[in-house]
């Protein structure tokens, strides 16, 4: 079967972000960008399923500005077979992304779609679920284990109290949690080979999808700073401060 993987270009997870002075958004100029960590895990899982002989082809897709092609090349270097870039400079919210991905699912007819559970910039945790709803396919979110078995997939999910395993009929949508796997690094020869792999470029208009959202960003601010605390010298002093100053004991 074919596996479709969605990847997003986001600010690198190690970067300490700055809010723009006019509070319109976070400042992304000259900031290191990378593939969203949860998307890397999605790519890794798809490639492993191919290596196991479960998948025959892995297609990576990204929606965003031209620069997102870098992240698609990374996915190709990690083992994806071909890529699809849907180019837009608009701020594509989860719903628009899910609608575009639903069109791609319709075109490509994958047996499995793997996405990250959330992007570390917007922290929405929505796209996979929305895609499942729009395509009328079952969903296995926050997956820490994915086992394809004939026309079903067993997905072990990280839930608040522990782990839950569900069985889904294929095709299905899976979103990855951090513990699903340990993504590999792309080797130089693979990075060179990835340059020759096919990449289609389309626009949202090609799919007849409107990217604009009814949610507007009014303001972005830095959170309230915690004021620097004090260092105490001993356990006794700590207990005394907690009892008499902070009054939390």
């Amino acid at each position, binding site marked *: 079967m074919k596996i479709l993987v969605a990847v997003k270009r986001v600010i690198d*997870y190690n970067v*300490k*972000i700055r*809010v723009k002075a006019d509070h319109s958004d*976070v400042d992304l100029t000259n900031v290191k960008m990378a593939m969203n960590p949860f998307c890397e895990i999605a790519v890794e899982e798809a490639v492993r399923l191919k290596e196991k002989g479960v998948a025959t082809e892995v297609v990576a897709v990204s929606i965003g500005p031209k620069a997102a092609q870098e992240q698609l090349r990374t996915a190709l270097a990690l083992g994806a077979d071909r890529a699809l870039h849907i180019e837009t400079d608009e701020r594509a919210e*989860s*719903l628009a992304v*899910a609608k575009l991905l639903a069109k791609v699912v319709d075109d490509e007819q994958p047996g499995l779609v793997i996405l990250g559970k959330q992007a*570390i*910039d*917007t*922290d929405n*945790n*929505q796209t996979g679920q*929305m*895609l*499942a*709803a*729009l395509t009328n*396919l*079952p*969903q296995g*979110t*926050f997956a*820490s284990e994915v086992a394809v078995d004939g026309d079903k997939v*067993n997905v072990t*999910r*990280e*839930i*608040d*109290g*522990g*782990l*839950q*395993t*569900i*069985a*889904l009929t294929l095709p*299905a949508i899976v979103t990855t949690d*951090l*513990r699903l796997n340990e993504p590999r690094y792309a080797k130089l020869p693979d990075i060179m080979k990835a340059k020759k792999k096919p990449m289609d470029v389309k626009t949202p208009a090609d799919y007849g999808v409107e990217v604009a959202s*009814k*949610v507007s*960003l*009014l*303001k*972005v*601010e*830095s*959170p309230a700073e*915690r004021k620097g*605390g004090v*260092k105490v010298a*001993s*356990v006794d002093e*700590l*207990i005394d401060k*907690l009892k008499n100053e*902070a009054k*939390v004991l």
Partner: protein
Amino acid sequence: MSILVLADINDGQLASATAHVVAAAKAIGGDIDVLVAGEGVQAAAEAAAKLDGVSKVRVADNAVYAYQLAEPMGALLMELANGYTHVLASASTTGKNVLPRLAALKDVSQLSDVIGIEGADTFLRPIYAGNAIATVKSDDPLKVITVRSSAFDAVADSGSATVEAIDVVVENTQSSFVKEELAQSDRPELGGAKVVISGGRGMGNGENFKLLDGIADKLGAAVGASRAAVDAGFVPNDMQVGQTGKIVAPDLYIAVGISGAIQHLAGMKDSKVIVAINKDDEAPIFQVADYGLVGDLFDILPELESKL
């Protein structure tokens, strides 16, 4: 304004998060109904009816809603959402799993992890691991929202709402429950605990987490962990506090052997008082800690336990 709150159910009982979501619904204002869906959820429905501010509890008690699987829950909410201006759920793994489905089926956006309410259409939510707070306005006809429960105080349980059964039964042929492995603990639930003590990579191994247990028992605290401690296999992942784990805001948070990476801070920096115990006095955790104690946790923890 007419608001539907999806109740969180834990083993047939009403989870504490629901009282926090009702508080958020009260901040929006209007009639508040609570949907209790699951199998064998009468006790949860009765508990929901006692929550202050709730006018009606709607109960969908059927095997198809057991474990609140996303597919039947999305279809049920799709049926019930008509007539409501807002649908709210806690940003628990269930709320996060189910609500985006409803939003997409209704062709509206979803607002995730809301921490502040400025009006019926304007909300505050953290982005970039809590390093920025966005104010967003939704012009969608239906607002679908998950609520960060730690950002709202729970409502009291002196209410008396009416309880009505709903007989909407949807079909689900796409997904089925196989098994669950729940972590057993007598301690308070991490999300709702007044005191949380967490261990990080500095704990060295899983066995050493027992050093936290004695203190947790004395303080009535829940025990958490950093992602590093979970990834190293010291403790199960449901103990993880952080951007990708649980978000907590207890009165007292004690971080032991945790450096204070952005990912971890996202999950605990709204705690009222933060204590850091770490041997590295340059660790970033000290920049957010109200009280820091530099030293070897293997000396400090037994001493702290004996003196509490």
